[in-house]
């Protein structure tokens, strides 16, 4: 088995021109990100556009979006294992790897957003002073790391079994898999509660936040998966049944429908009741006191989401692979805008004392964020490059030793 793993590891460094170009590109972006982070570590977070009025920005926006992506890996797990839908069962592995990459990116986004990252050990129990159960941030740290652990174990378990030429034994993995379902829902619920519990921010302090988080997670994560699965299918020997892809697309349609419905519910509540608390939503879609920087973005996101919903809803449309991919990209971008800057920034606009500071990420912030995305992409690429040969069994030509 170790021989198989070593062989697979060797494969990570072997590939065609496209592979090397891709990795080189990712490493370049990571390099830029690292240099930008060094500047931030030296000068402080002043290199970002965040200020006291908008104290969380692009980094936390990316974190929020990625927690959703990580949670959505479970959307593949539910039909695969609970309904034994075979076409999906085989590709759950790739979903779990996406969850791993996404959680790693989440953790990175949080760490680079901290003013004193070396002090992160203060969060730990026993050695530090962990504020459990009061602080939702602590809950988030616990569930995210737990989720990472669960997915790593699941992937390792699958790879170990595959490397030995066997099927995954459900009996051994099932408890962990079943745990991963509520756990995935919990990571996103805890993240939602992080914002939800703040009475200081009326835009977030709405019961609809947690359901909206889950709905948007469960359409954006699988949308990414749809694209990734097709890439894997194209570039490797892995066979992925179209039925799996279309089933995922169908589920995405329903979750996007729920997402749009919940958005509609929020819009109704704020604009019909018309209290001062409607200000953040007004800022997003219509501008407030002449400040309208995010307005075109929000309408674009809405247009993308509605179009994608239509594409995924109608079987004839979603089974056209070109339209499917367009739809997936539309969802990815739409939810990224809506849940990223479209969620974090209006929580602070207007701020607690009514001031409007229009935040837009600085170049440094963008570079560091791009670096982390590139790192996640590289991690996923390496995981795929490592696991696909094991998965397809092509490394099992000789029996494993020891």
């Amino acid at each position, binding site marked *: 088995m170790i021989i198989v793993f070593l062989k697979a590891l060797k494969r990570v460094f072997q590939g065609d021109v496209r592979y090397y170009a891709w990795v080189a590109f990712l490493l370049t972006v990571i390099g830029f990100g690292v240099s930008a982070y060094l500047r931030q570590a030296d*000068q*402080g977070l*002043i*290199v970002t556009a965040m*200020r*006291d*009025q*908008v104290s969380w920005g692009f980094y936390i926006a990316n974190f929020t979006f990625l927690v959703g992506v990580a949670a959505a890996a479970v959307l593949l797990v539910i039909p695969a294992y609970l309904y034994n839908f075979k076409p999906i069962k085989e590709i759950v592995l790739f979903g779990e790897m996406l969850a791993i990459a996404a959680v790693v990116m989440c953790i990175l986004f949080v760490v680079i957003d901290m003013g004193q990252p070396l002090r992160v050990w203060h969060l730990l129990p026993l050695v530090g002073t962990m504020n459990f159960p009061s602080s939702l941030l602590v809950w988030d740290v616990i569930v995210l790391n737990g989720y990472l652990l669960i997915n790593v174990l699941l992937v390792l378990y699958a790879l170990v079994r595959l490397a030995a030429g066997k099927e995954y034994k459900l009996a051994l993995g099932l408890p962990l898999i079943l745990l991963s379902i509520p756990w995935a829902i919990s990571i996103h619920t805890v993240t939602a509660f992080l914002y939800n519990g703040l009475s200081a921010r009326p835009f977030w302090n709405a019961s609809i936040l947690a359901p909206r988080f889950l709905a948007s997670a469960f359409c954006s994560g699988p949308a990414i998966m749809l694209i990734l699965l097709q890439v894997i299918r194209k570039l490797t020997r892995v066979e992925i049944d179209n039925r799996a892809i279309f089933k995922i697309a169908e589920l995405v349609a329903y979750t996007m429908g729920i997402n749009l419905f919940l958005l509609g519910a929020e819009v109704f509540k704020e604009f019909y009741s018309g209290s001062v608390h409607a200000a953040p939503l007004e800022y997003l879609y219509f501008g407030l006191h002449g400040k309208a920087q995010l307005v075109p973005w929000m309408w674009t996101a809405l247009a993308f989401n509605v179009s994608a919903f239509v594409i995924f809803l109608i079987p004839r449309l979603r089974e056209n692979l070109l339209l499917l991919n367009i739809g997936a990209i539309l969802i990815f971008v739409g939810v990224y805008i809506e849940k990223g800057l479209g969620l974090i920034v209006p929580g602070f606009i207007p701020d607690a004392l009514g001031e409007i*500071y*229009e935040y837009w990420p600085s170049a440094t912030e963008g570079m560091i964020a791009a670096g982390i995305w590139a790192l996640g992409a590289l991690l996923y690429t390496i995981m795929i490059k490592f696991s696909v040969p094991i998965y397809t069994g092509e490394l099992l030509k000789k029996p494993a030793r020891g």
Partner: protein
Amino acid sequence: MKRIVFPIMAMVLYGVLLMAASSVAAPVVPDAESGKRGDLPRFLVPSAVSRENFPCSRCHNFRAADRTKRKLKEYHSNIELKHAEDQRWCYDCHEGDRLRLQNGRLIAFTESYVLCGQCHGTIYRDWKAGIHGKRSGEWDGDKLYRVCANCHDPHKPRFSSIEPKKPPMKPSDIKDR
């Protein structure tokens, strides 16, 4: 000559020192005449005395008092009365080196707050309790109370507007190096 100049200079110096002391928020040695009297505060920062005119008896002992309400032209012309000037004028509150209450009783300048308190009863009450006026001293010990005339010009008490300090920087103007 020296006998007149010296006391005047001493009084001028005393007045200047008192003004300087009262404008700094540091505990000041209380005037011997003030002290705890019922519900009155213990440590009073006295108001400054007029440099040119104190003591009043210097001139007013030698002049006949013309109590007709009029606008003064020869002396005290720099004092503009904008404080219920339709109802009163100088002799309603001043009597030689003392101040005159409504019931005719004369009080010292160091107790000027009693005079003000006649009309401004609610503020007088708040001031005695410590919630009117500039606060300094020790919150748990010797609190410093200023007499009314310390902050308010008795003849023209309304505060004039002042220039505000600079507004804070806008967040978009706070930049890195």
